């Protein structure tokens, strides 16, 4: 008996569909289902509450603070990662002695385990004994030690650490694209009298458009849902309140309040925010003919 090509095709993609359904679709749907319950995180106490969790959060000031902190964190880190990443890529795209070594070193922050990176940064930024304050005091940039882990500077510290940790991804992506830009474009621009800055804005940047579109999209999703770096920096410490982004708040509701229903509601809200933002992003920046 011979199967039709349509059936054979279905059979061949069945394992992938089963895998996607069990590992992606089911957890997402279960998360949505859980968000409709008042449920203890570990014990079998649960009660259907419909959309009550959503209404509760919409009226909850802590939730809105988390949305605000999450937005500040993700927008600032993405902008800085792109700026720093593109500049670094431009530098290491030039020919100079030791370029390969520098390219390797740039990747370090991305390959160091987050937990190790955070421990190191916490000591570097310690306001009493940290190296950062010591150096800044020695050079005369500051007169008094800065409380990097305190209320007023914790968000700045988090942004600096996150940019340091994740900008190599931008460097890698942008550098890969830069190496494929035809040199003739630069030569033509030079003949037309364009200096380095004009060449960057009129040749390099337009050529990077597509790669930056994807990089910004991916990094936005990753930064908006970033948990480990944010949580490890304070682990519930006093200043945690001032960097309590949505993923951290969802974690707290689930594993510290033991309210799995509310935790899932927060996860679903994050999911919805990301879908809407991505749709707007596509609408604004993706030209029809490129889709």
């Amino acid at each position, binding site marked *: 008996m011979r199967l039709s090509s349509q059936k054979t095709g279905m059979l061949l993609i069945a394992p992938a569909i089963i895998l996607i359904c069990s590992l992606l679709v089911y957890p997402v749907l279960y998360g949505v289902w859980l968000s409709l319950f*008042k449920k203890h*995180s*570990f*014990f079998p106490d649960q009660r259907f509450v419909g959309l009550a969790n959503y209404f509760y959060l919409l009226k909850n000031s802590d939730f809105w603070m988390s949305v605000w902190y999450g937005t500040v964190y993700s927008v600032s880190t993405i902008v800085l990662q792109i700026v720093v990443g593109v500049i670094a890529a431009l530098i290491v795209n030039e020919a100079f002695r030791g370029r390969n070594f520098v390219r390797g070193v740039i990747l370090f922050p991305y390959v160091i385990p987050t937990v190790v990176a955070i421990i190191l940064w916490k000591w570097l930024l*310690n*306001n*009493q*004994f940290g190296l950062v304050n010591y150096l800044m005091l020695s050079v005369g940039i500051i007169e*008094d*030690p800065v*409380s*990097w*882990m*305190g*209320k007023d*500077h*914790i968000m700045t510290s988090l942004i600096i650490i996150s940019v340091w940790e994740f900008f190599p991804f931008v460097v890698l992506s942008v550098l890969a694209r830069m190496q494929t830009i035809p040199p003739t474009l630069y030569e033509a621009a030079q003949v037309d009298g364009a200096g380095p800055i004009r060449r960057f804005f009129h040749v390099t940047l337009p050529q990077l458009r597509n790669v930056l579109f994807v990089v910004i999209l991916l990094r936005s999703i990753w930064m908006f849902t970033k948990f480990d770096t944010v949580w490890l920096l*304070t*682990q*519930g*410490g*006093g*200043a*945690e*309140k001032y960097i309590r982004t949505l993923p951290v708040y969802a974690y*707290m509701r689930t*594993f*510290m*309040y*033991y*309210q799995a229903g509310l935790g899932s509601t927060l996860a679903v809200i994050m999911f919805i925010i990301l879908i809407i933002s991505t749709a707007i992003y596509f609408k604004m920046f993706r030209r029809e003919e490129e889709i």
Partner: protein
Amino acid sequence: MKKKKKLIVVIGFVCLFSMILGGPTLAAKKVIHVWHTETNPVSREAIANIVARFEALHPDIKVEAEALAWGDLEGKIMAALAAGSPPELSHGQPITCAALQEKGLLLSLDEVVKSIGEDNIWDQIKKVGKYGDHYYGLVHAAGTSLLVYRKDLAEKKGLKNPKTWDDLLHNAKELTMDTNGDGKIDIYGLTIPGDNLFINILMGELTKANGGILFDSKNRPHFTDETMIQTLKFWKELTKYLPPGWEGHGYRETFANMYGQKAAMMYQGYGRGASLIEQYAPAHMASTDYYDVWIKPRGPSGTKPAAQVDEEPWMMFKGCKYPNEAIEFLKFFYKDENYLEYIQTVPIHFFPITKSLRKSSAYHATPMIKKWKGWLDVQEYYLDNDLVKPTLVIDWEDMAGKPYLMEILGSGILKDMVMEVTKEGVPPEKAAAKAQKRAEELVKDKGYAKW
């Protein structure tokens, strides 16, 4: 090709023999899982030694002891219980023990208590794990929070043990110093950890010391009481003498502030700090001549000082595989010779729960105990006068009657309230009202509201 075939045959036989010979041996071993919170290398080594001796006596039992960080423990216990595969034994917060006991998830440790001798255990210790007539928790060692201070600096300023919060503020002001005359503060009067656990610990202590309560018998929060407002105002005053960025300091960093000579008093010190001072302070300063302890002061509405007792109980979980073997292990753990080895790893923090060991000459011969006796005397004073309670516990009745304290601790409601008052300038009354609302919601959500 032939060689390859031969190799495959040999490997096959080796595997087969291993399964035939090794299989039953492994299967016959009863593996008990023990989770504890003593992550420092010396304590882990002592536990490993005790385990080795126990296994030598019981060849059919294997003990898998695992040291876990505090931050991971509660979630891991809960997840293991939910998955139906809890460890046999684990340390935990007293309020976790209370919550799990209330849900019927713990097994009795009466047999261990009987083997130690109930009369041989300090009365204060018994209150932590005894529910009705049964023990569902048994403290591994006790240590109280301590007000550590720089004795040399206090003597120079003629400062005495503060009796009230006002006295403490006076001392803190006096000890906040510009030592080199450059107009900048070099030593701050006080250091306090800013993390959630320690702020909760401190809120429990201060509430007690000020004669207040956190929750009443109907489980309603009392965060807007005058005693709480006074406590928050005291917090605000205290922050004048704390190093900038104190809210970002963890427990270890506050000790670094002490032995690094950046702070002159530490409100949430513990006995294990003596080891840190010995390790990191300048050698000539590593003694009670420089770092001593005062009895903690009381608040304006309080009559007695109060401190927190760090006494995590061992718990044995319903649904574990080998409860009898776990009981045998605990009995062995508390035998004087084994228990002493464990206690001596952090001797100023680990108060033995048994009277016999605390009186024994072997215990008193421990070099650190001789050197830091003053620190132990204050802890003994607290314990003997019932001035210490576990985290967030105001009265002993709270242990059995308020199983939601674990969630209150985790939620950070108290920490947020303190942050709002001390860092955001929110009036204490307003911050307290917000915390009251959040706590009421949480207690209602957990189904314990009786008001």
